[in-house]
Structures are given as C-alpha cells and as structure tokens.
C-alpha cells in the first residue's frame, strides 16, 4: 500500500507519453459512448430532431416491448451458437493446417477467401443458393426428388435463423482459424514428442498438452467472436430481414428495426445502450471466469 503515492507520481510522469493515447481514446471511444447515453435520454422526432429531455421514457418504452425477452433469448442463442461452432470448427481446421502436407500453402490461402469477401456479399450468395424457386440448393433437392417444391430455408423464421448461424460461423472461421494456428505454431514441438514418449494418445496429447498452451489464442478468438457475433447485423438483415415478426431477431437487428420500421430513434438509442451494457457484462464475466494466460502470472 505504501507504493500508492509513488505509483501516482509515476503515472503523472508518464502522462506526456500516454497523454495522446488518452486523448484519442476519449475522442473516439469516450465521446461517442457519452453521446449515445445522452441520446437515449432525449425525446427525438422520427427524423432525429431533439425535442428536449425524455428522462427514462425511452427505456420504459423499450422494456414495454413484449417481444424483448424473446429477443434477448434469441441473442443469447445466436451468440453462443455462433461462437461455439466457430471455435470448434476453427480449432479442428487449425490443427489440420498445422500439419506439413503438400499444397498446405494453397489450402491455407483457400481458407482466407471467405474473409476477403464482404459479409453482405457472402450472405447474399447463400440467400440465392437457398431461394425456394431459383436457388441451386433447392433446385438440386427438387431434381433428385427429395423435395416436391423448393423449401423456403430463408423464408421462415426458424430455419432462416439456423441458416444465419451457419453463415455467421462460416464467415468467422478464417480469422479464428488463423488466430488459433498462430497459437499452435508457438508451441514447441518437443512437448508433443514428450507426450508421445510417455505413451499419451493423440486426444490426450491435444487435451492436456496442446489445449492449455492455446489458452491465450483461444481467449482472444473468443472475445472477438463474441463481440462480432453479438453485434452482427448484415447476415440476419439479408437472410431474415423480409420475414414478418420478431422470431429471428437479435438485439442488434431489433435496434435496426426500431429505427427503420418503427421510426423510434430514441427507443433505438436506449436499445443501443442496453446492447452496450450487455456486451460489456458478457465480456467482463468471460474475462473473469476464463482469465487469459498471462493475467495470472502478474
């Protein structure tokens, strides 16, 4: 505790060096966040004119939405499903790409392709593939006699939501795979050899030797995927945007609908604040429960 004053003095001495960064953070993070909070307490017209303070009215209106609990559940299902599927598939892929085999570079590049395309583009391709009348996937199923008439995979809330989860995992895999691959490459080969000598099975070697070493890479991949999946708008917008009702909505698409359809900018601002709080809480819990490697060393 006696170190506190000297720490304060040290911080003060460091100020000229970290000052610009603090200013930058205040300008590009602090100000918009503050502005968002401010907006959520204002009474806004349908086209954004500020009519004065609204107190908690926007939040009351938001919590009065009878669909809100259901949408929060969807958000949870969506985020967990996308992150878990992405991590599982990426870990497998990264393990495969870590092996030396002919053409490895080409395969590694191929994995990057979905990352290079915009999410809207990728999603639109899936949307067309699954179109009930002209989609290739449906045409194939009709031609081989599985279906009598194209099925609306993206036309009903339930199936469309599942398709969207698949697409979200598909577009997240490149980044996640490369993060985990980087973690794998940092593991010395001797460890695996030692395990082999001791007679551990491949699964045991992966579970008790590789996985613990991947902790920090996995943690980074998880946090970034959590944020990405939670905030993802384009995939659900393209695949489920035309479906009536809220059966395939997450909090992010609800925000979008509040602005575009309900014309309630102020309620949408309140929703943004709630969204922000939710993601902050989720990540705080995650970081607290699974502390990334390195944290416990300090």
């Amino acid at each position: 505790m006696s170190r506190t004053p000297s720490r304060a003095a040290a911080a003060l001495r460091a100020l000229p060096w970290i000052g610009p960064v603090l200013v930058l953070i205040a300008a590009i993070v602090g100000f918009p966040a503050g502005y968002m909070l401010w907006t959520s307490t204002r009474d806004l017209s349908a086209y954004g004119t500020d009519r004065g303070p609204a107190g908690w009215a926007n939040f009351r209106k938001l919590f009065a939405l009878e669909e809100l609990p259901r949408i929060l559940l969807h958000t949870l299902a969506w985020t967990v499903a996308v992150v878990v599927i992405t991590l599982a598939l990426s870990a497998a892929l990264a393990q495969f790409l870590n092996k030396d085999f002919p053409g490895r570079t080409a395969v590694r590049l191929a994995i990057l392709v979905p990352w290079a395309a915009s999410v809207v583009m990728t999603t639109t391709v899936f949307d067309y593939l699954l179109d009930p009348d002209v989609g290739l996937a449906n045409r194939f199923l009709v031609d081989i006699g599985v279906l009598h008439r194209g099925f609306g995979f993206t036309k009903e809330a339930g199936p469309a939501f599942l398709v969207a989860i698949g697409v979200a995992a598909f577009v997240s895999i490149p980044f996640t795979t490369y993060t985990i691959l980087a973690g794998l490459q940092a593991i010395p080969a001797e460890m695996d050899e030692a395990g082999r000598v001791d007679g551990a099975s491949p699964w045991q070697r992966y579970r008790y030797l590789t996985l613990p070493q991947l902790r920090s890479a996995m943690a980074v991949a998880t946090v970034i995927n959590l944020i990405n999946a939670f905030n993802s708008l384009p995939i659900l917008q393209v695949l489920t945007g035309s479906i009536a009702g809220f059966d395939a909505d997450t909090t992010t698409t609800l925000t979008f609908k509040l602005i575009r359809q309900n014309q309630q900018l102020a309620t949408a601002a309140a929703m943004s604040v709630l969204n922000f709080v939710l993601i902050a809480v989720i990540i705080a819990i995650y970081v607290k429960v699974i502390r990334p490697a390195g944290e416990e060393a300090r």
Partner: protein
Amino acid sequence: MKHPLRGAFSSMVLATGLVLAVSSCGFGGDKSDDSDPNTLSFLAPVYSDGTKAEWDKIIGDFRKANPDIKVTLQTESWDSINDVVRTKLQSKSTTPDILNIDAYSTYATDGLLYPAADVVDPAVIADIQPGFAKNASINGTQWALPLFASARTLFYNTDLFAAAGVTAPPKTWAELTDDAKKVQALGNGVSGYGLPLGSEEAQGETSIWTFGAGGTWSDGDHITVNTPQNLEGVQAMKAIADAGATEPNPGATNRADVINAFIQGKIGMIEGLPPTIGQIAQKNPALKYTTAPSPTKSGDPSTLGVADHLMAFKKDGRKQDAIKKFLTYFYSAPVYSGFVSSEHFIPITVSGAKALADDPVTKAFATILPSAKFYPSNNPKWGAVQGAIRQQLGTVTQGADPAAVLQKIQQAAS
C-alpha cells in the same frame, strides 16, 4: 498487485469501439453552398433507371430559361432515402430545399415546410385534382405538392387462366380464392395468387384487402387499425394463404418477388402497379396478361391509391422565389406529363391527364382511380403505423391471430 479487472476493462474499451463503429451515426455531413438564395438543393428518390437523367434534363431546360437559378440534384434509392433525409435534416445547411418523398406530415406539423400555395403559382394549385390536393393537406392547408399517383389493379396471366379453365377475372374474394386454387393446381411451381406480406411493402397489399372490406386506416383525426372491417380484410388474406392458393411463405415475400415471379409466368394473379406494365414490356414482352379491378368482398371496385409528394423546406426563408420558379416550371403541362409518362405513373394534374389521355398506363388505371382510397399520409402517426404493419402483419400467415396483430399495430399510433 493484481488487476483482475484490467483485462475486462481493456476488452470493454475494445467492445465500445466496435459497438460504436457499428451503431454510431454520422456527425456533420456534406456542406453545400447554402448561402446563395439562387442555389436550390433537391433530393429525390430513384423510381427507375431513367429517373436521374429525366430530372437532369428538366433541370437543364429550366436553367436555360432561368440562367441565374441553379438546382443541384441528389438522387437516392428508396432503400436509403429515409436515412439520408434523417441525416440531412440535422442541420439547416444540409437540409434540402426541395424534397421528393412519400410522407410529408411530420415535417409539416413541425413547421418546417412552406405551404404549397407559397411555392407554386395559383394556376398550378388549381390544376391539381381535388382528391390529391386533399390528401396533401392538413386541417385545410395544403403542405405538399402531389407528384404523381400510383394505384393497384389486378394483373392476371391469361395463359395460366386458360390452362386452369378460368374464363373471367375474379370480382369477389370468393371467386379470387376459387380461381387461385385452380391455377395453383396446375403444379410445376406455379402459384395462384401472389400475396406479398414481407417487411418491404406489407401495408400496400394489406390496404387493398382492408379497403376491399370497406375498411380504412383513419377516421379523419385518429388512426383506426383494429376496426371490424379491417379485421375482415386481414382474415380474408389469412384465409387465402391458409387455403394454399398463394406462393409459400407469404409472410416473408416482398412485393418485388411476386412481381418478378408474375413476369416470369410463375404466378396467376398479383396486385400490380403502373410501372409493372413497363417492367413486363422490358423483361418478358411475350407474357400474356390483362388487368382488371381488384377483387373485393362484395365485388364493388375499390383499390389503394398512393401519391408521392414534392415539398419545400422553409429554413431561413430566402429561397422562396427560386423554389416557386422551379416548381411552377416543373408543373407546366409539357414538362410534367413528359416526366410522368417516362416514369410510367399516373398524372395528378388535370392538364397532365389530358396530355396523357392515350398513355397505356393512364388508360389501364384511370378508370379505377376514382374508387381509390389513400393512406392517411396527412396523419403524423401514420409513418410509425405503416412501419408496424410491415413488421407485424405477415405473422398472420404464420399462425398469429389477426385481431391480436391489428391490436398491436394500433398501439403504434399511440
């Protein structure tokens, strides 16, 4: 010294950045020269591939006659124009002087617009057909200038009708369901009736049906969504969907989808719009089709009429003369009728209707126009109600109770 929350904090900072990158809206915007009273900014939606060229030509011709007035045009797709307007209205310097859009009432009631009489010559006001002038007025003051009209009418595929053994177009809902079932029974991926209740334009299709049961969305002052007549219309839509006489998943089908499917000969009947005639001529001229009045509950004609509007923003009030010159020029019969016919809509001025008497679109739609009812676009609450219809109504074909859905939409008007 441990800082268990440092990781959490830095992640939160990261999260903040990402959340805001996604959700933050623009500050500022483009600055055009707004100080010159003879420079007008004009924001218009894109109706067709030719819209921009058409406006450019009108503005060019106007410039020749009035060299001192400059009109700068910006066109936006219907998808994004509402967002663009919202952004532009944040500041006086970016607010357009003239705006072309569907709804005008919130701007009018907030005192942002010139009354129509202040921005065109009296002759133009007198030339506008009375029904449209009334639809552009609130409490007796006309705030916007109707640009042109659109209405819906039944388009039916005569080849499919012949194959299914249907001889005349349906007049009532009962006949419609019957005929749709016969066409649907042809198989081969053909649907009987195209029912677009997806989130794009559900209010249009719904209005045709509720109006067809004698319903209306407003009693003059109040929005009336959950009335017995409207309920009857919605139940009839649900019934034809439940009868399996429509395309699959009407609750997720957009208007553009059914129009395209009709053009490809995959749907027996749809409620089409004036531009549909042009689209068919362009994409599939071989399609055999005819139009007929929309079927209703009793068989009496009734349909939905829609008018888009031009409105002028007052701002500091220095551009009134320039705006008046431009709009008066635009509504002169040759300029106006040229624009309307190139966009394949229906003229709303008496002189324009005369000039276009032989136009195929005007011919197909002019007869039903007197029976058309409009959205209550002079009610500021209508925007939110329309959004709620788009959002909710399609759920009736997914098992939701029509009365409960209408009740929920009614709440959007409160």
